[in-house]
């Protein structure tokens, strides 16, 4: 077990180096750079810069240096000082920009993840043990519809319903008048009134897929002989189902549970954009659109690091839960 963890961890190091370099290259990919985007924006506002001014800006930002040099400078600062550089657009340190939004992002995605799992696993199991029952049909339809409706559309529809039919103030995290107000019961209620839409949207789309997978896995497992063996030992249906096939059916899940980590960090970008939530997603979108290099790069780096760590975590969890993996 320890050996597996160690080798996996060692594997992660070269992956991380490659990934960090690729992140940096990706943000360099678009022709033009932040200055181009910045000049274009100024022009839209009716201002013009001379070529010399533009060139000076480039040199100021260090955009004229060779790419490997830029990468080395960037990564050493991150590793040694935790300094992700400066956002050109917001003119603020990248780390503080991300940090400001991370709390809410993690909170929202964790709540919806817990909801998703809490709902999806029992329903998937129940639906599989009662195949072709009414509940199973309802669940199957829900799974299909949930797969067909894009999250942003669901968010739009819920917003429209909340706004036009329930006369609610939707969008954002709270009504503007509470923005600067100190925490109070009224403010908390107001937040709750706003936050149900993203949670419903995220949990629904997540649960729909998860239920399908869980149901299919369970149907596979329920047909296997070891389930009959367990019944032949005198266990009740509930004991059999939850102790045996569910344990096995959960393994494919466990092997992807680490993937939740990067997803937790980025939140659901589209839903957040539609609902105008102050999470990390819209910030990333903005950074990418503006070619705000260090902000976007920092984002992509954190995201890919989380991905590598998440995969690592999954592997270890799977080895822990499945003896066939652990003992080869």
């Amino acid at each position: 077990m320890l050996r597996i963890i160690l080798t996996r961890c060692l594997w992660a190091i070269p992956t991380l180096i490659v990934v960090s370099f690729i992140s940096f290259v990706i943000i360099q990919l678009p022709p033009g750079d932040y200055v181009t985007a910045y000049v274009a924006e100024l022009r839209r506002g009716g201002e013009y810069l001379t070529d010399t001014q533009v060139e000076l800006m480039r040199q100021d930002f260090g955009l004229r240096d060779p790419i490997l040099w830029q990468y080395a400078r960037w990564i050493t600062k991150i590793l040694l000082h935790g300094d992700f550089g400066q956002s050109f657009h917001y003119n603020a340190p990248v780390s503080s920009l991300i940090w400001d939004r991370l709390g809410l992002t993690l909170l929202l995605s964790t709540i919806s993840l817990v909801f998703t799992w809490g709902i999806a696993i029992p329903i998937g199991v129940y639906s599989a043990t009662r195949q072709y029952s009414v509940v199973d049909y309802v669940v199957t339809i829900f799974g299909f519809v949930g797969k067909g409706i894009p999250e942003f559309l669901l968010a739009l529809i819920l917003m429209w319903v909340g706004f036009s039919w329930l006369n609610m103030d939707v969008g954002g995290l709270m009504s503007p008048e509470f923005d600067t107000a100190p925490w109070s019961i009224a403010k908390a209620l107001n937040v709750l009134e706003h936050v149900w839409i993203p949670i419903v949207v995220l949990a629904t789309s997540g649960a729909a897929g998860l239920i399908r997978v869980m149901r299919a896995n369970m149907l596979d497992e329920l047909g296997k002989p070891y389930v009959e063996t367990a019944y032949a030992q005198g266990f009740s249906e509930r004991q059999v189902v939850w102790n045996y096939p569910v344990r096995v059916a959960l393994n494919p899940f466990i092997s992807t549970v680490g993937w939740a980590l990067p997803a937790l960090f980025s939140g659901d970008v589209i839903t957040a954009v539609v609902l105008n939530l102050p999470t990390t997603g819209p910030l990333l979108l903005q950074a990418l659109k503006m070619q705000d290099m260090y902000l976007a790069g920092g984002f992509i780096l954190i995201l890919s690091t989380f991905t590598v760590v998440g995969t690592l975590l999954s592997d270890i969890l799977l080895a822990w839960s499945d003896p066939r993996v652990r003992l080869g």
Partner: protein
Amino acid sequence: MPPIPMANDMTNFPPERLLDLRDLAVTFATAEGPVRAVQGVSYHVNRGEVLGVVGESGSGKSVTVRAIMRLLARNATDTGTIRFAPDGEPLTLSGQPRDSKLMRSLRGNRIGMIFQEPMTALSPVHSIGTQIARTVLLHRGGSKSAARDRAAELLARVQLPNPGEMLDRYPHQLSGGMRQRAMIALALACDPALLIADEPTTALDVTTEAQILDLLRGLQKDLGMAIVFITHNFGVVADIADRVAVMYLGQVVETGSVDDIFYAPGHPYTKALLGSIPRLGAAKRHRLQTIQGMVPDPYHIPKGCPFHTRCDHVRPGLCDVTAPPVFSPRPGQEVRCHLTGGAA
């Protein structure tokens, strides 16, 4: 000899009897219509006796024992009487729902069961020790460490090497024969009065098969339990059984002691099956016999005697019209055939 009907006295349950089936019928509801997998099976097992149930695949032998265990698929319905007397008074199992308290207290406790596929019949994510200890805890209670000790004792009993170490092994680390031994240990966890073995050696190679049969015979002698041993292999039956029931298309066509069946088979099907066993030292140039035709599909079971479509001695107008009654050529042997009784 006049025909004697099979015992039909419902109250007749001699004290030496452990398990008694009367007119068991099982029907599966499928999309293509009902399938009558078992139609009127009656047999019994006495205490400490090994009953071999022989038949081709699809003859209903596995379905019959699943009806005893009350573990039939959800689309199955069954009629008939199943009585089981593990400790004195007979209990009526027929009609018990799948998840009933009585059945749960019997399964794994008074009735143990071993399956055909040792590869997949044990949970892949639990250690052997855990699986056995769980059954012990369920029926006997006590502490976890006591259950674990019991598991180690059982593993030693089925002659697995290093039983203490085996406790923490997982099924995928064991060979097929070792898994089947572990499976037997699991079935014996609570000293059952009846062990149902559903083709326990079919998936194993010949040497391992012989070892497992040896083991089962030894355990049966030591523990004094009864065994219902299901197989399609007459050779295996000769090795282990005291009495034999031969099944064809959901019916028992012949029962009798092992000697009677082998030396004086009454039913043409039994004769044909015995004729199709290759023998060492048989006369040279002696062609191995085969049974003509194919097993009819379960949707279209022939009228009259189910075997008449393949029988060499078929009498048109009789065999394909009326179901044959039961004849008893000698005490303890019963044959379901028009010809054996000499009737015309």
